[in-house]
């Protein structure tokens, strides 16, 4: 997994609550058998009209947000389906971190398993970041996992939390399966003690 330590990037505001994974990657694009190739389908129905032309007013299509790597958005982001295609698409599009008041559980885990950092912040803080990213052209945010802080260039410093285990996995880019396999003996013992009916 790609490690995540400190990332500074252009922030884009997506001012919606309850953004579901059907919006992040519509289902007609889930038929690929690879993990790659989903970035082009990110927010497809919001980015493109019926003729496949970019919708000029959708925030990701505005010239000033091209190259954004940090997504600022509303509560309950990533609700709905468990499709990991959603974080794959966000990552491939270029996002490294998502800042929101809350995330759906499965989506949150899926992000962490792909080196995409979901950061939970107070709703007021997200609102302020969203305001700044809307008003100021070229608004950059630093997401620092070493210090567990979100910062901007105007002195905003906001701590966030991530459990120590998850944090280490991300900082070092560890493979969760390798870590679990260190417990092979314990798994075998569990199986021996629970033979089933």
């Amino acid at each position, binding site marked *: 997994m790609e490690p995540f330590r400190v990332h500074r990037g252009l922030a884009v505001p997506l001012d919606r609550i309850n953004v579901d994974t059907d919006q992040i990657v519509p289902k007609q694009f889930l*038929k690929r058998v690879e993990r790659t190739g989903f970035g082009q389908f990110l927010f497809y129905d919001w980015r493109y009209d019926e003729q496949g032309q970019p919708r000029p007013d959708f925030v990701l299509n505005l010239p000033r947000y091209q190259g954004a790597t940090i997504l600022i958005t509303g509560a309950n982001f990533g609700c709905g389906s468990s499709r990991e295609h959603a974080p794959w698409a966000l990552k491939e599009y270029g996002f490294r971190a998502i800042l929101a008041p809350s995330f759906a559980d*499965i989506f949150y885990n899926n992000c962490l398993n792909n080196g995409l950092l979901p950061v939970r912040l107070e709703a007021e803080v997200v609102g302020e970041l969203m305001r700044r990213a809307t008003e100021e052209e070229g608004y950059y945010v630093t997401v620092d996992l070493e210090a567990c802080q979100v910062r901007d260039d105007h002195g905003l410093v906001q701590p966030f939390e991530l459990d120590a*285990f998850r944090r280490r996995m991300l900082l070092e880019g560890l493979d969760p399966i390798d870590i679990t396999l260190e*417990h092979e003996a314990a798994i075998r013992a569990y199986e021996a003690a629970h033979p089933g009916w």
Partner: protein
Amino acid sequence: MAGKTLFDKVWEAHVVVEEPGKPPLLYIDLHLLHEVTSPQAFEGLRLAGRRVRRPDLTFATMDHNVPTTPRIPGQPLSPDPIAAQQMETLIRNCREFGITLFDLYSPDQGIVHIIGPQLGLTQPGKTIVCGDSHTSTHGAFGALAFGIGTSEVEHVLATQTLPQWKPKSMEIWIEGELGLGVTAKDVILGLIGQIGTDGATGYVVEYRGPVVERMTMEERMTICNMAIEAGARAGMVAPDATTFAYLEGRRYAPKGAAFERAVAYWETLPTDPDATFDHRVVFDVSRLAPQVTWGTSPGMVTDVTGRVPDPSEFADPETRRAAERALEYMGLEPGTPIQEIKIDRVFIGSCTNARLEDLRAAAQVVRGKKVAPGVRAMVVPGSQWIKYQAEQEGLDQIFKEAGFEWREAGCSMCLGMNQDILQPGERCASTSNRNFEGRQGRGGRTHLVSPVMAAAAAIYGHFVDVRELGVLTA
């Protein structure tokens, strides 16, 4: 010492390793696979040179993108070559790794959350995962069942375990008396309307109380299915005599003396009287009416006797904007009576409401009537077994004579990954679980309802209060 909840008991029985500062490693008893979320997991295994640790605890089916038209051996699996490739990939993976697969031609094929219980794979006290959020359905049996992503699917394939922080616990106490025509679907929709689509985020929910105790397994599955729509990690119901009677004799359920031993264990699982939950919600169903969603999130729901709300009624600005956007997408005017909303399509199907009981209830409404002119209605049984049983009972004739299409099993228009989709602007009464924008087809408008409400809408061409038709019997 304080007592334990059902969730505590199932959790503790599956902890393989617990170390300070790390998520406990949970053993997984049953892993279900389908064609859409598994290919990348198998590919990962192959690249790392790993095998499937317990193919005997792993079962696969195809459901999400299968066609629901008649299946003719020798024909391509799907007219869509990419979907066909995804199914062929699953066949190859299951063969290579030694996993039992209920493929398109199997009499056991069906929606993954419907066939697990039907085959007796789903049992009380088990930990069950699947790369699909509605895995929560299996919690109806007192199992701890939750959806996972593809990386986690790979993790479980390789290790039969999953590192997991223990979620908090929530009791949802359901009391009162359900009126005739008010169903489990209305209970869960009404509940989500009350607590919100993130009302249970971070929690494992246990549904309790007299209404739940009286529910059939099918009804319990419906409310557990949509626990995820309230944000819950899982929904659970304590196993009881209803559960045991459902399981006895099913193919993968324990038999004879083993069944007796299993029941003796399952009887120890219900929450102790002195156990406490992290959070408690009480939901009284006595005045609950049939529910209809009006927006693009399952929490945007109201009584069939109600009206489309005016967004300006919502105090919270974010909720107001979400409601405005939803009404625009849905093409609805504030204040419109729900019963005046005309529909173009009806879908009776999905892992929420496509079991035999659901089809029987819908058939009661449809019997001897005709689908309204201009409405296209379809029934997609949740599994081939259900389809067969329904045909034995003549339900297919009732639907077909009324003008419904009678289809082969699959997810179908629940998510529209196959050919069964809404056209832009079409409005659908659907028994599924999600009314997200574009869920049933780009630009399609979904109203979530119960099977009897969907059936009634098909006959009248608009929503009607099924209680007033006088066709339902208890």
